[in-house]
Structures are given as C-alpha cells and as structure tokens.
C-alpha cells in the first residue's frame, strides 16, 4: 500500500544565504497552513562552517523554497552567486530531487536563482549547464514596487497553482528591479511556443480587464507579459511577484472597499496547491 504524507508532516526547507529577506513571511505561509517549514542556511546543506547537528540534506524535505531578497547583494547579477554556490556541491542531488518530482519554488530573487541555476525554463532538460533565460533589469530602470494583476494561464501542469482556476485574475504584489524575462533573441518565439505546448507558462501580467497590457501593468517589460513559469515536469516553479505577501485578504490594498468576505488572500493558493500535491504524490 502506498504511504501518503500528512500535511502536518510535510517538511519544507526555506533556503537562505546572506541578503535573503523574505524568509519569515515565506515560512509563515507554510506554517499557517499546518506544514513544517524550517529555515535552512545553504551552509547547512553544503556542510560548511556548521556543527554536526546543524547539517541537513535536501532529501530530509519534501519541498525547497528559495525566498525573495537580495542574496549576496545582487552582485554579478541577481541570484547568480546564490546559484553558483548551490551548483558548486548540490547539482547532482538537486537534479535527483527534481527527477523524483519533489517541488521547488522560487519567488522573486528565488526565481532569479532558479533561472541562473538552469532549473528554469527547463524546457527539455532538468538543469541546463548554462542559463537559457535571463531576468534582466526592468525596462523602466527602476525598482517597481506595487500590486500587480496576474492571469493564471496554466492548464494543470504546475503543481503550485492547481487550486487556481484557469484564467483567474489574482492581485499579487511585485517588488523587483530585475524581472524582465528574456530568452535568447534568436530563439524567443521557439521557446515560447514550446513552453506553451508543454503547459509551462503559469502567470502573465494583465490589466483589470484581463488584457496583456504594457507598462505599468507589466512592471518590467517581460516577454509575452510572463510573470511566472514552471519546468516541463511542472514541479519547479518561479514567479517574480510575491504570493506570500497576499496570504490574507486584509493584505490586499482595497480590502476595506471590498470587505472581508473571505480571509483568504490571492496568493495563498500557491502554498495550499503544493501541500495538496505533496500529500497526494508522496
């Protein structure tokens, strides 16, 4: 008989290094839903400068989350140093983790790390040796920080959005300076077509009528208005906006006008979806 994991037994590693700064709200999101998140410093996985009882292995967890922030001061490029440190020792384990269909989430800086790691876009391989996409400086050359509207485009591949109906529009805040998704210029159309075929496009920036509008609705100039993508398996997911910042309805800027009919914020489903997936899959 297949064993199933109970929600309260699900362990999530909230991975951090110096400069990570969204780990608390990411931890809280999973904790409030009854799971067992744990702050894990990358050194604990690399076995560097830590005591024996602090050492961890990624297979002690059913999910890894890389939260937002400015890891390593965004030096070189946002997320590049975090990714290089992960790759230095954990590459094989990480590939195995993804192969076994355990989920990995990257939000904002975490998304940048997943791109630099080569785990995303993950069109036909689990991890590419060099990045195949880039989250470049916003077209405005500014840090764009405000609520953004996201249309859910995924047809069911992404394990982090299974509880969000297709075409649903969600209000989730963005806060980034480097969020413009780019593919190699000579392969942009090919990549997007293949990602659409694979059902890898998850969220797109829209205006209040659901149109794929330009700035300011698309805060960074991202190609095809893309805000979030998953790999071809559907278990590695990255998005620029912050679902952990709209966990409760009262975190929405207009909740006083709309009332608190429900206390569930628009971003909460990202966390409930993955917990449901883990319970069902493992």
């Amino acid at each position, binding site marked *: 008989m297949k064993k199933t994991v109970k929600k309260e037994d699900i362990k999530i590693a909230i991975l951090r290094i110096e400069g990570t700064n969204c780990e608390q709200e990411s931890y809280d999101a999973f904790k409030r839903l009854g799971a067992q998140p744990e702050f894990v410093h990358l050194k604990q996985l690399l076995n560097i400068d830590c005591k024996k009882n602090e050492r961890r292995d990624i297979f002690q967890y059913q999910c890894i989350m890389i939260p937002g922030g400015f890891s390593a001061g965004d030096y*070189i490029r946002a997320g590049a140093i975090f990714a*290089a440190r992960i790759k230095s020792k954990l590459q094989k384990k990480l590939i195995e983790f993804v192969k076994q269909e355990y989920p990995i989430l990257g939000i904002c800086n975490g998304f940048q790390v997943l791109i630099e790691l080569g785990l995303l876009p993950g069109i036909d391989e689990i991890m590419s040796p060099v990045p195949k996409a880039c989250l470049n400086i916003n*077209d405005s050359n500014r840090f764009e920080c405000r609520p953004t509207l996201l249309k859910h485009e995924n047809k069911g591949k992404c394990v982090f959005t299974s509880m969000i109906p297709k075409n649903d529009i969600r209000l989730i805040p963005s806060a980034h300076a480097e969020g413009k998704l780019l593919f190699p210029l000579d392969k942009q159309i090919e990549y997007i077509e293949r990602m659409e075929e694979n059902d890898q496009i998850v969220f797109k920036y829209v205006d209040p009528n659901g149109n794929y509008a330009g700035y300011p609705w698309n805060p960074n100039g991202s190609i095809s208005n893309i805000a979030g993508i998953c790999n071809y398996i559907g278990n590695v997911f990255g998005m620029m906006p912050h679902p952990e910042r709209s966990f409760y309805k009262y975190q929405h800027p207009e909740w006083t006008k709309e009332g608190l009919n429900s206390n569930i914020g628009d971003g909460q489903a990202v966390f409930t979806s993955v917990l449901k997936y883990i319970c069902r899959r493992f």
Partner: protein
Amino acid sequence: MFEVQIKIGLKKGISDPEGANTLKALHLLGFNTVKEVKTIRIIDLIIDEKNRDTVKKKVDEMCQRLLTNPVIHTYEINFKEQQDKGKMI
C-alpha cells in the same frame, strides 16, 4: 602571474535601460551632442598561473559559469600585462 581584464557588454538587440536613463540625464544637463550611452562592466582578475593558454581557458569558463549570462551578454578577455615568473604583483 597574469592580470586579466574581462569586458562584459550587452548583446545587440538587448535593451540597456541604464544606458538609456543616463543618456536622458546627460541631455537634461545640456550635453545634447551625446547620441548613445552603453553600459559595460569591467572585471579585473589577478591569476596565479604559469601558462597563458590555461589562463585564457579558465577565464572563459568563469565567464560562462558565473560572470556572464549567455542570453544577454558578450564578453572580451584581455591580458593587461604579464609579470615576471614568480614575481608578486
């Protein structure tokens, strides 16, 4: 010992918001003859190796594995000067 300079630029067709913004500010300051601003990044390395080809190969690998993102960047590796064998810089 080798001193190497890496010049990292943006590929043709990749927008350069930092350059565009700087151009706008320069125009506001009255420098109207400036027609284009491109931003580049320079990284200097001092490498303790004996063989120039090994250095070239290693720096190339550094660029591909960390210092650049091949989707948007071009890079150029230049040897600044070669020091005497064993002499500290």
